[in-house]
């Protein structure tokens, strides 16, 4: 195996891992925002996210024959998904989490697992009565075209498609927007205040209930957007396909330090790269001394996420960017 092949594979991993990683990062943002404010793992987020993907599927399906620009269709799909997922998340918070404020920590966590199961089957039902189960997404023309040149360089070997570029671009915009919102607006300051100390922020005139609802709205909307991106990337989904990416995105959030927005992005990227790398690592068995890599089949790439998680938590219990918390007694 010559150097150029290795280089190409590594470059491919870098780009493929980037587009996977930002997808995880988008989903992870929803987890991390809710966790930051409520210290709750919102297990239902993976269903909120896949609900967005399903909305995206139906929008693409409805606009299939409309003579609209593909990007306009994508924007419509994204907006619809953000609206539905955000609303869904707020609804979940109202019905299932708000009555449990101040309960022991395990209680809302188990509720969240329950909500996620209920949503999975409800989504299955809503989609299923139309006789559908596995949805295959028809993207607007042009999205699946391969990109052959970048700044005049031939990159056809990289197997990069237009949709990957869209995904990376959308993710970048989203993170930028979220960063602005949280760190540079009045609303963001209120959110941070509630996250820091709900009671004291209440004394300062912040209505913590509405801030929490708002957090769920934004987290859900991000999840919905992530869902459309997921549908675009894989072009196949069903009511249950949110679980695994949801788990991984949560892993990404923990990896980066849960409750920390840049951490979620970093965790997502690390995970995306680790996973993509493990997916192709068996190709390196041709290199002398590395033949044992052949045993690492592509199926084991899913293990990478959790092994990375355990490893990182072992050395940095609060995650990569997380700050160690001291228990108040």
């Amino acid at each position: 195996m010559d150097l150029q092949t290795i280089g190409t594979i590594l470059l491919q991993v870098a780009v493929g891992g980037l587009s996977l990683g930002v997808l995880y990062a988008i989903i992870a943002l929803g987890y991390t925002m809710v966790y930051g404010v409520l210290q709750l793992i919102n297990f239902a987020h993976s269903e909120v996210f896949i609900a967005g993907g399903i909305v995206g599927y139906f929008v693409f399906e409805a606009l299939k024959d409309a003579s609209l620009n593909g990007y306009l269709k994508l924007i419509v799909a994204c907006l619809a998904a953000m609206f539905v997922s955000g609303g869904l998340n707020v609804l979940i918070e109202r019905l299932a989490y708000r009555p449990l404020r101040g309960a022991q920590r395990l209680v809302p966590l188990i509720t969240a697992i329950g909500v996620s199961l209920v949503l999975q089957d409800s989504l299955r039902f809503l989609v299923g009565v139309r006789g559908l189960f596995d949805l295959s997404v028809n993207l607007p023309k042009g999205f699946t075209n391969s990109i052959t040149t970048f700044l005049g360089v031939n990159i056809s070997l990289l197997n990069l498609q237009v949709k990957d570029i869209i995904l990376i671009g959308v993710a970048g915009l989203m993170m930028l927007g979220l960063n602005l919102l949280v760190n540079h607006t009045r609303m963001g300051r209120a959110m941070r205040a509630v996250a820091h100390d709900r009671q004291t922020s209440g004394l300062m005139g912040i209505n913590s209930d509405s801030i929490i609802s708002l957090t769920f709205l934004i987290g859900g909307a991000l999840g919905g957007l992530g869902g459309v991106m997921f549908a675009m990337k894989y072009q196949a989904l069903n009511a249950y396909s949110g679980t695994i990416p949801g788990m991984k995105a949560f892993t990404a959030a923990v990896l980066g330090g849960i409750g920390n927005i840049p951490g979620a992005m970093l965790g997502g990227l690390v995970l995306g790269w680790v996973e993509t790398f493990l997916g192709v690592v068996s190709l390196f068995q041709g290199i002398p001394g590395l033949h044992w890599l052949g045993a690492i089949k592509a199926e084991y790439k899913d293990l990478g996420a959790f092994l990375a998680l355990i490893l990182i938590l072992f050395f940095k219990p609060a995650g990569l960017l997380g700050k160690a918390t001291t228990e108040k007694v």
Partner: protein
Amino acid sequence: MTTAPVRPNPLKTRPVGGDRTWLLLAYTAISGLLLVFMRDLVADGPMKMLQPVLFGGFLLSLLFAYQWKAAPWAKMLVFAAAIVFVLPFMGRSNTSYFDLMIQMMIFSALALGLNIVVGLAGLLDLGYIAFFAVGAYLWGIFGSPQFAEVTGNPAFANGINPAYFWLFIPLAVAAAAGVGVLIGLPVLKLKGDYLAIVTLGLGEVIRIFANNLSVTNGPQGIDAIESAPVPWLNSLAHTLGFAEDQYRLFFLYILVLGVIAVTIVVNQRLDRSKIGRAWIAIREDEVAAQAMGVPLLKTKLLAFATGASFAGAMGVIFAAKQAFIDPKSFDYFQSIGVMSMVILGGMGNIPGVILGAIVVTMLNLMVLPTLSEVLQSSFPNINQNLDPSKYQRLIFGLVLVFMMLYRPEGLLPSERRKHEMHSDDEHPAVDSITTENLNHGGELGGHLRDGSGAETRSPGLATRRDNERTGSEK
């Protein structure tokens, strides 16, 4: 007889003298009905729904018998009759009942194991089924033709000698406990939420391995798993009129009964032991427990390994019962299923956990399949996606959510707590709120009503509560 009036709901009222006649009569009536009708109701059509109803009624009658304040001998008689006579008799006339009952007991033991981890020690383990898989695959590989495939030795065409089954139960206990310690060591230092995600990951890791390793035969699973040979039980079964293909189930029924008995005793002992109190202390307040000298990591690890070892042993039995295992039986959803059993029944309470396991298993394996069968035979053109048996997740989810919202202590709160709640009828309202709040025994959700109940606490009540607790905690 007794002077106390017999009221309609035995769950709520407790006749002082104990009314064994009514208990025995009601019990005989229900099991008689069951035995008479069960054979003839195998027919198709809407009448088939009577099967789960009757069977459920029978199991419910056992619960009533348990709750009824009758003389102990009457209760024992009822339970012994059910276990020795009614259930095997039903199993003989319809093998699927045998299957269902063994499955119920396997899940009961699993739920009791998880109860130690979540209910006593408060560690949320979302990958519990992984330990079950360890046990199941351990026996599955050795006790089936798969062993010949792995070793390449045709002498093992039927796996190793099935008599080694007995050796594999302790082996699986050790293996599962070992995996528990291995996974627990790096993560149990972390906070509860992190533990949840790591255990979730562990479950996923085990599933991926089961799916891809050649030892486990990947997604095709392992077939023709043996079970231990017990000639004298087989001849006993023969004498009792069981068909030859039911011998295995008969043996497993007896075995599982024994295992359940052991599990219950171990659970009870642990609950009242020093280590059990240490677990409860950790669940209630880690920092305080540590300050009182409880070694945090060691105690948590012990809980984790103990729960895992139960699952390992049950895995061996599960593999022997199913004779076939594949990775699908051990996914995340199954872990949640076991957890919903624990929560539905009453976390931390042994009869409650068993009740939860029975209700959930029955729902999954009997009520829903029968319902969809009936639906399909009555409306042949119905949409496949409306099939009720496809909505297990919905039911599990609703169980989890509603229990957490409205009854976090479970269907069957522990006897001690109920006693506390009903012992004093002078000001029942105040009493029930405060005692539930304060004497929750730290069940999950013990602090749920802290906000609403806070103002009803008073020094006087608190003192009396302390006396009560010492009185009932002999």
